């Protein structure tokens, strides 16, 4: 299973590297419109993946698109984690009605998939990367809260938490010092999975036109643009999808690899 981890890690590093690189160099200017060469094929005239309907280099567009994917991923996951972990932690620590209420609220929010929340937000405010981020992040809070609560519950049952209370430690301290480190591995795996989901969600929102707006590049929007030309240049619909799928695959494999590495070895019986 090391293969999972290595492959995933390589892909993720590759994507991050591409994003960083895109700030300094791309084969062509991604926004350069050149009416003379619309929809050029693979490899022609130095365009690795051809050009889009406006003559812009597809490969450069994809490189820049990686920035958006990662940016939204990071911020959406950050929102989900910063709100979700405390909620899950409090639910696990307090139990009783507090736990019930928090988890019910969480379930209601969970009934709003990211797309739906985004639709609401965009209808209310304005489409764009910010709306996408907030919608995705908030939609994933319930997942983080549930996972945190589940893992934290079993830690709170353990005697070393009782011992800590016995020598005077208070709730928040116990959570930070004793509970979090022991649930960290579960959370890390969850975060990588969420990253993958967030990238998919952003692509979907951009595809629908309510996510990232022009001129900011986004893989999802490239697919949206490509749809118009599906009969003429199906290739335009192919490569952005590959970019999305590869990146998502990378994060998923990374998450699997981490989880396999951290799984306690099955204890052999006596």
């Amino acid at each position: 299973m090391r293969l999972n981890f290595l492959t995933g890690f390589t892909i993720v590093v590759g994507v991050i590297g591409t994003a960083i690189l895109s700030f300094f160099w791309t084969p062509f200017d991604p926004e350069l419109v050149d009416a003379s060469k619309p929809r050029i094929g693979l490899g022609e005239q130095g365009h690795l993946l051809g050009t889009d309907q406006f003559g812009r280099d597809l490969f450069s567009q994809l490189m820049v698109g990686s920035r958006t994917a990662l940016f939204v991923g990071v911020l959406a996951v950050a929102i989900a984690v910063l709100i979700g972990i405390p909620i899950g932690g409090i639910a696990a620590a307090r139990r009783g009605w507090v736990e019930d209420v928090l988890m019910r609220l969480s379930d209601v929010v969970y009934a709003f998939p990211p797309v739906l929340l985004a639709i609401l937000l965009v209808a209310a405010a304005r489409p764009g990367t910010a709306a996408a981020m907030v919608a995705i992040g908030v939609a994933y809070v319930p997942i983080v809260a549930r996972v945190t609560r589940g893992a934290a519950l079993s830690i709170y049952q353990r005697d070393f938490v009782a011992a800590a209370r016995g020598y005077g430690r208070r709730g928040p301290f116990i959570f930070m010092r004793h509970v979090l480190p022991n649930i960290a591995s579960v959370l890390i795996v969850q975060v990588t999975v969420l990253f993958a989901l967030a990238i998919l969600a952003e692509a979907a929102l951009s595809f629908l036109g309510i996510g990232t707006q022009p001129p900011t590049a986004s893989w999802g929007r490239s697919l949206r643009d490509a749809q118009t030309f599906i009969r003429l240049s199906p290739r335009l619909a192919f490569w952005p999808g590959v970019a999305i799928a590869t990146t998502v695959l990378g994060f998923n494999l990374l998450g699997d690899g981490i989880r396999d590495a951290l799984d306690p070895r099955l204890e052999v019986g006596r």
Partner: protein
Amino acid sequence: MSSSGPASSESELLVIRDLTVTAGSSTLVSGVSFELGSGQKRGLIGESGSGKTLTALAIMGLLPEGLEATGSIRYEGRELLGLREKHLVGLRGNAMSMIFQEPMTALNPVMRIGRQIAEPLRIHRGLSTSEAHSVVVELLERVGIDEPQRRLKSFPHELSGGQRQRVMIGMALACGPSIVVADEPTTALDVTVQAQVLDLLRDQVVANDAALLLITHDLPVVSNMTDEVVVMREGSIVETGATAAVFSNPSTAYARELVDSVPPMSRATDVAPKPATPLPTDAPIITLRNVEKLFALRRASLFDKPQPLRAVQDVSFDVHRGETFGIVGESGSGKSTIAKMMMGLEWATAGQIMIDGTEIHKEGDHSVLHHTVQMVFQDPNGSLDPRLRVGDVIAEPLRALHIDGDHDARVLELLDAVAMSADSIHRFPHEFSGGQRQRIAIARALAPGPKIIVADEPVSALDMSVQMVTLELLDQLKRDLDLTMVFISHDLSVVHEICERVIVLEHGEIVESGPVGSVFGSPQAAYTQMLVDAIPRLAVRN
């Protein structure tokens, strides 16, 4: 590789030769050989890691995934190892059956017990559902389950632990097997229930003319239930022989160690009543007066009133400075709740608790409490934070309570007091054995210099040979540091060994109290008598 032993072993029901179980490159069981004759009862004794359970699973062909068995296991002359599954299934549940340790997880939680018991009957005897029904009812009666017609339809979680184990016994004996393998069948049960279930097992085995292979770590139990015994340690057999002989006169040092670790009260010899130490006259250091603890249980529906659980009812007692005070009871007796209330981990819903002259309340400053009372918990696995190094584990109370002085030096001092080496401070809890972890837990409890140590089942989770050593350590520390110890346990013989006075709890109330020698020697309350009678005794002929 099968070897031909002496001629008589060919007629034995089960012959095991050179059994070896490996998991990858590590060997878990090696070179195990013994026989089981028809109708014979043999015990398989060992501590954790001895390989006894794996041996049992190998016999049944139920080793977990990834483990391999080599050697020879012959049943009625037929080699079992390497036998294809379709042949093995004909034997399991029919000629050979097994009883497992944890009845809650060993039974399918979503299937009614009637169906589960009927299964071997339908598979091996070809009975239809209705035919099996009457047999199952009869089986349930035989194993002492009342209202069998109604109980048939119950699910496992609706039965008590003892009842579940009775169901397991019924299931195992349904097809009249010639061998019953019982893996720690009563370890998870209360001591009074344990005695009943063991009696049932023995009766049923005898009635069915079956051979019994009883696997356990509990010597007194083996001494009562078996004629022959095999002692295992770390995967190999250490000693074999007749049970009575091995226990009276063990020939190996390890077996002798095991026998010696059985406390006097668990021996069949008459126990001389422990002389009562005179009651100290100064004011008690712990006082409980009419203490009550109610837990609010979740309501079954919005319409029911909340039903409170009375964990502790009207409990009053004193503990004097410097004594070792025992609190005895089975599960649900409230003993752990009382322990937590002494520590400030739970608060009484009525009554008073005074520690060292001060009454303790939920509100208010608890720092005095934290300095005065500390606890040693039952499970050495769960009582230490696996992410912290041992040095930090012991230093935490010092930091939390802002105790003056050189913390590092104090940690080393404490490790020394519990006979652990100084370089332990850099290592993690999982690198140590259960007994060692318990010592670390003791060192942590002693760190703030408390006057009172509350020990909640401190040795119950440890191997026998380690139990005595740990108890001696606690006793010595108590004397050296002039501590008061409150010792909570379900194990009367251990309490008898180290406590001076004791209270006996049943369902949250005190049923008896007094010096340990008289309470256990001539109990006044019926419940205490029942507890004392239920203790399995090691029959030792001197």
